[in-house]
């Protein structure tokens, strides 16, 4: 018991050290959000001398903070829902069915995690002009979903594979169809991985730049990353307000992260995973 306590102290110590290292950028971001360029360049670690609260007002005006944050939340949430539903449907088949085309399809998804984003921009942009889908959110949601699907399908498939098959068989004997098996039995067990992937997808959709840059033109449709570019003038960047905007934009992700990760822990189930 005593030994265990000692271990705990060591764990706490390590946890604290890493925690300090990772909380540092938040500190610097908040400090920087209250400074001007010269003060930032002279030292990012020092406390701000004059608290330039007005940076936040500037940030709001330059980046249309509420509008762009709202747009990003909308895009990210829609993407998260779509990826979860579409990804789970596919993962269920890939993990549970033994058909001749399962392996090749799995390989196709592999291409999805590997493709460098820059080689897809021009063809996708061409598609968007042909479909008159520029400045449209639904098209962006589809793109974001496609780019997240591969990883989602991987994670879901891996997780479903680790769930005992006997569970399926019992459910089918009880009269479950594929739809109810997936929605009523497997999905709840998969809650930890669904919530985890949802966090990833949300953050991707929330902060994506290159497609929102090439496909959106109307300022009222701008996303967080796209609006962030407004802080750069012709010859210099207004860093203080930019950091103020980073702080403002971070708040929604923080909430989503905390809410979703609660789901991960509540997903603990006994006996479902094969031992």
């Amino acid at each position: 018991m005593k030994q265990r306590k000692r271990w705990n102290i060591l764990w706490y110590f390590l946890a604290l050290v890493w925690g300090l290292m990772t909380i540092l950028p938040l500190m610097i971001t908040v400090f920087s959000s209250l400074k001007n360029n010269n003060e930032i360049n002279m030292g990012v670690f020092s406390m701000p001398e004059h608290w330039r609260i007005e940076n936040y007002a500037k940030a709001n005006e330059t980046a249309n903070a509420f509008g762009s944050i709202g747009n990003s939340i909308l895009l990210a949430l829609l993407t998260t829902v779509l990826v979860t539903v579409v990804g789970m449907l596919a993962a269920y088949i890939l993990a549970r069915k033994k058909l001749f085309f399962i392996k090749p399809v799995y390989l196709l998804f592999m291409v999805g995690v590997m493709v460098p984003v820059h080689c897809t921009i021009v063809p996708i942009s061409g598609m968007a002009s042909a479909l008159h889908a520029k400045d449209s959110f639904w098209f962006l949601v589809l793109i974001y979903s496609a780019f997240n699907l591969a990883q989602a399908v991987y994670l879901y498939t891996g997780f479903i594979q680790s769930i005992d098959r006997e569970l399926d068989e019992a459910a089918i004997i009880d009269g479950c169809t594929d739809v109810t098996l997936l929605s009523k039995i497997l999905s709840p067990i998969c809650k930890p991985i669904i919530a985890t992937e949802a966090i990833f997808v949300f953050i991707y959709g929330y902060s994506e730049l290159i497609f929102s840059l090439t496909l959106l033109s109307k300022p009222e449709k701008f996303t967080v990353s796209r609006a962030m570019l407004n802080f750069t003038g012709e010859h210099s960047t207004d860093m203080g307000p930019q950091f103020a905007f980073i702080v403002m934009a971070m708040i929604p992700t923080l909430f989503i992260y905390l809410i979703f990760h609660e789901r991960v822990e509540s997903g603990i189930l006994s006996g479902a995973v094969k031992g």
Partner: protein
Amino acid sequence: MKLKKATGLTLAALMTVSLIPGTALAAEDYSLKDVQFDNVTIRVATRNGGGAESAVDAYYLSKVEEFNAMDNGITVEMINISTEADYLDRLSTDFASGDAPNIFLEYGGSRVLDYLEADYLLDLQPYLEADPDWYGGFKENGWSTCKFEDYGYEGIYGVPSETYQIMLFYNKSLLEENGIEVPATWDELMDACAKLKEAGVQPFVVGEKDAFRFGHLHTVLSLKKYGADVAQKLASREMSYDGEEMLSIYGMIKTMVDNGYLGDNLLSTDKGQEDTYFEEGKAVFKYDGSWYPAQIEESGSELFANQEVGVVRFPSIEAKYEKTDMGGTTDAYYISTLNATEEQVQASVVFLKYLASVDYIEGLIAVNPNTYAYNVDVKTDNYLLNDVMAIMNDTEDVRSDLQGYDTQSMAMNTVRTALQGLAMDKTPEEVGSEIVDSLAEYE
């Protein structure tokens, strides 16, 4: 060449006139006076920011709004991306996918050569000539980014906006304290640096993490040593990037690096930090563009407020090239004909006449005094800008980045990347052969 282009354009104009009913334009009438359009939408890509915080951006937004409110049948849609790399990403993507903006901002030379070779740029010469008022509003020497005779294309393919020149800014009181005269020649500058270094004062801090810093230094030194012809000679490879002449330029930079004149950690300092060092009085000199006065005024620097910043023409190396400098037009507007209807092209010209006009620029100067390629009087209470303009008016010949005259569009990047080597213990010879090798890789 000229003949072929001209007839091609007239033919195209004739054809569309007969094809599109309701276009009230005769083939010869390029003046576009009082033309009415029937609901034409054009898209304009610039590097103005979308935010209303900056005076320039706010002015642009309000002027476009004003234009859209006019009853001329034209609606302007803006694509505003202020960061350079992102702007170029967007522009490249739009041209590659066929959905190009009707008007776009670029920096001329080899950077727009690809568009010109694909025949996607409108020759504005007939439109300019048909409207002497408009044509006359531009300074005669401002067309360098819009003409491509060296590449074999006659005509004027854009209209210029800002002009610039690279100069030497200095901290008056630091020079005085150390008993140093403002340097007029390179040798004087080197002496000054040596003295300052001895006194424990840092002469320059250069943010070479942004590779254009040595790029500019290389260009201005080459011009001061070999004259304006060096641009053509380098572009045609008559002068080689690993030849004696260039090696001696790299050597000059190298000497400054080795003596610590340019700062200790060049490669981990960026341009923003460079500015801060100067503005906080931690560096005596700084070579920068004529845009710097407006920038330092906006930064709220005390140095500027106390009128302690001075400016002088970049020190001369060869006396006969004393007044040859790095400068010219920075940006220009171009009209793209890719997938554009004749109506859109004409509407674009109409908007360009509005945007690139003395009226527009006069309003712009009121909110952001700077140097422009227009015949306008810039009256400003920015003392530094007044000094800068006096120097520019006295300049005889200018060339921009030497790689802008190259036929290889990657030359700029290649040279700048290789020049960073001078801050990494590479010898001039190594840098020279690196440039030549990488350029060969792209032939």
